[in-house]
């Protein structure tokens, strides 16, 4: 019996699941202290996610950029780097997407592709700077990327001040061209009789397509996750990147160029965060960048999701959906019960906390073993 428990406790997914349960438990305590019924609150939370097809759609829409920033973190992590700069890379990708989406005039399908590639290049270079500083001068990537996050934020704000960029009477840029949108049934939606036609259709058209920003971003995100998994596990690039991550001294001794690999890895991680920025701009309203006082935290949410997803390129798809879901669902909790949706930050925070100390579960498993050994 204890042997089974012990084996289970050592499994990654079990410790993640336990952390999720404990996280909700901690959230429940916080709710109770604040004078709310945690069961009711959580039931509204889950109703907010699952009660209508459009809620599920919103969950997916919200999850998409976060899955991608998480993927950026995962990629860097697998190659021995900590990409806390996904946030800044995301913003650079978003700015690049707005620029290319607004000023270029290209046919549909081609336009989004060009925007994504441009965003990847800009954000990739932005990440590559971090890699370059680490490779050439040994500066810790955490420090440089945190600083570059702020640079990206202010670059975003500065971009909006440039002549012709700002939409008059707003604190935001112009929207991108509709040719660059990646929303599902874009043409129908923006046709003159589109709303009527959609409303006449079944639930998918009347509820989901009409009332959400459902877009193809999730497909791009999943494809990116699969591609990263492939690169990491099946290619020579992944082999050398991971080798450097695991043991750079041995990699160096085997003739692998460690410095080049660090730069490459940060470039790719940045490019992935750039896709997140582009998908965010092209996939959902308002399709523009706004002057910000603080970052919107997409990169940092990506860190949490990467952890919840066991730092696995496929695991983060599910973790991202979970994360996007409870954040979206918390809105209905707030609306219907007056529970501040910050409570969800407590839940997520505790989940991440317990996953981070997942070794705790392994220690418990060891205890069980020791007890047994003493018999």
């Amino acid at each position, binding site marked *: 019996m204890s042997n089974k428990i012990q084996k289970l406790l050592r499994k990654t997914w079990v410790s993640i699941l336990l952390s999720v349960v404990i996280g909700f438990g901690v959230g429940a305590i916080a709710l109770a202290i604040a004078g709310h019924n945690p069961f009711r609150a959580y039931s509204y939370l889950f109703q907010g996610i699952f009660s209508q097809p459009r809620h599920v759609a919103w969950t997916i829409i919200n999850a998409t950029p976060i899955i991608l920033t998480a993927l950026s973190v995962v990629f860097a992590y697998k190659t021995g780097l900590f990409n806390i700069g996904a946030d800044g890379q995301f913003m650079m990708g978003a700015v690049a997407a707005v620029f290319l989406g607004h000023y270029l005039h290209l046919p549909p399908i081609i336009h989004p592709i060009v925007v994504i590639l441009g965003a990847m290049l800009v954000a990739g270079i932005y990440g590559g700077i971090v890699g370059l500083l680490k490779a050439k001068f040994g500066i810790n990537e955490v420090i440089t990327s945190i600083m570059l996050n702020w640079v990206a934020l202010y670059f975003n704000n500065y971009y909006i001040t440039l002549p012709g960029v700002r939409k008059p009477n707003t604190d935001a840029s112009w929207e991108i061209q509709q040719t660059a949108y990646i929303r599902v049934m874009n043409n129908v939606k923006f046709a003159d009789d589109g709303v009527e036609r959609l409303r006449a259709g079944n639930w998918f058209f009347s509820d989901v397509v009409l009332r959400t920003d459902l877009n193809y971003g999730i497909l791009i995100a999943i494809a990116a996750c699969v591609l990263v998994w492939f690169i990491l596990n099946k290619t020579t690039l992944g*082999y050398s990147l991971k080798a450097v991550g695991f043991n750079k001294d041995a990699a160096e*001794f085997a003739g692998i160029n460690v410095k080049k690999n660090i730069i490459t890895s940060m470039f790719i991680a940045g490019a992935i965060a750039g896709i997140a920025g582009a998908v965010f701009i092209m996939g959902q309203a308002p399709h523009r960048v706004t002057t910000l006082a603080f970052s919107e935290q997409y990169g940092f949410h990506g860190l949490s999701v990467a952890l919840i997803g066991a730092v696995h390129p496929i695991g983060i798809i599910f973790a991202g959906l979970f994360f996007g879901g409870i954040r979206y669902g918390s809105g209905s909790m707030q609306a219907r019960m007056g529970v501040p949706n910050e409570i969800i930050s407590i839940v997520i925070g505790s989940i991440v906390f317990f996953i981070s100390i997942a070794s705790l579960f392994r220690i418990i498993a060891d205890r069980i073993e020791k007890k047994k*050994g003493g018999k």
Partner: protein
Amino acid sequence: MDAVYMKNIYKYFGDFCALDDVSLKVQKGTIHALLGENGAGKSTLMNILYGFYNSDGGEIFVNEEKVNIKNPSSAINLGIGMVHQHFMLVETLTVLQNIILGSEVTNRLGILNMKKARKEIMEISEKYGLAIDPDALISNISVGMQQRVEILKTLYRGADILILDEPTAVLTPQEISELINIMQNLIKDDKTIIIITHKLKEIKESSDFCTVIRRGKYIDTVEVKDVSEQGLASMMVGRDVNLHIDRGECDPKGIVFEVKGLTVADYRGLDKVKDFNIKVRSGEIVGIAGIEGNGQKELVEAIMCLAHTKAGNVLINGKEIQNTNPKNVLESGVSVIHEDRHKRGLILDYSVELNTVTQKFKKKPFSKKGILNFEEINNYAKKLIGQFDVRPDDCEKTPIRALSGGNQQKLIIARQVSEDFEIIIAVQPTRGLDVGAIEFVHKELVRQRNAGKAVLLISLELEEIMDLSDSIGVIYDGKIVNFFENDGKVSEQEIGLMMAGGGKNE
């Protein structure tokens, strides 16, 4: 009287049986060697005696009384002391402070009485010939003295039974004979010593009895004077082994590898390799003997282009390779067996098969257009595992971390000799290996030399250098101070002197 009797000890790690009914009887006032291959279970057995592990079966008697040793402090209370292979000393404290650490002498107010402690320690030190400098910082004293500090630590805590785990692994020949003297002094005073080792020569020189363990099983206990080194080796490995390889005549051809006037500084800017010269011809083994820290490490780093050379050249078939990059060095035909398996040799988180292609994963057939071909990698790994008898023989998918040190080293050697190379540089290729694995490594190096390759052997083990090398260079303070043909005319003692700086060129 038996100082220690461990009776029918069992120990499991998960499903793995590390000790299967092992017994050990140690007479009081003797030096008792515990002999076995890597992973045979000798350290496990001693860790049970010292209370680090609890046994899963069996009884322990100390001075013929049944005891229950739950943790190291109960072992210390029973008069058992252990000196680990890796010393447990605080580098920034003095010798004296390290010895009293944890059992300080204080007065009633809790104030240290250093005078009393110093007096007691110096008494012990003189009694057994454990020469120390009580006020030197640990970071400034030699490895030999650090070991004496460790022994003093246990004696100061009242140990009557000393366990020494691989005590000679880090010592020079001179330091080893000093240690053996100290051990003799200790048993004269009726102390008991258990020494874990796989060096047969030292057992012959120091010990009274020897217990052999093989793969977790008790084999035999013998009186050392009754058996030869050869006999001990066969008992340990379970088959006849060749302790001293017969390398035969060498047939050297042209010069393949040459180091000319090489000067390399360490990270502080101090020259560690100074105007170093050596030539290696194809079909010969050149050995570089020397005590650790005389520039061997910097020499290897410079050859591999991991360190910048200040002056001089490294040539392969006349082509300069210094100050390029590791990839170029490897492609020029240098293959290195590095002493530090875990740091430089292996990617421990990769599987065995992935570790076989660290230098050629980008080449056909192991990959094509950037996509790895796992089937080819797997076949290649299987081939190497089979050819070089890496165990377990179906290990290609397991993380290499899980293999024993000897098998990890076999895999590195398999990989390095299977590269295309002109010269193989073997740095301490048998560090931490047992006789069976050493024999394998030595045979392989000689085989490479007989196949017409150049071999440069850099080792701290003088015996190894003398067994394998066709010519020997002695490195001291970053220079070759002596270079001679290894034809038996220069004795081990003479080389030992040269290694300590007593040799003069010209």
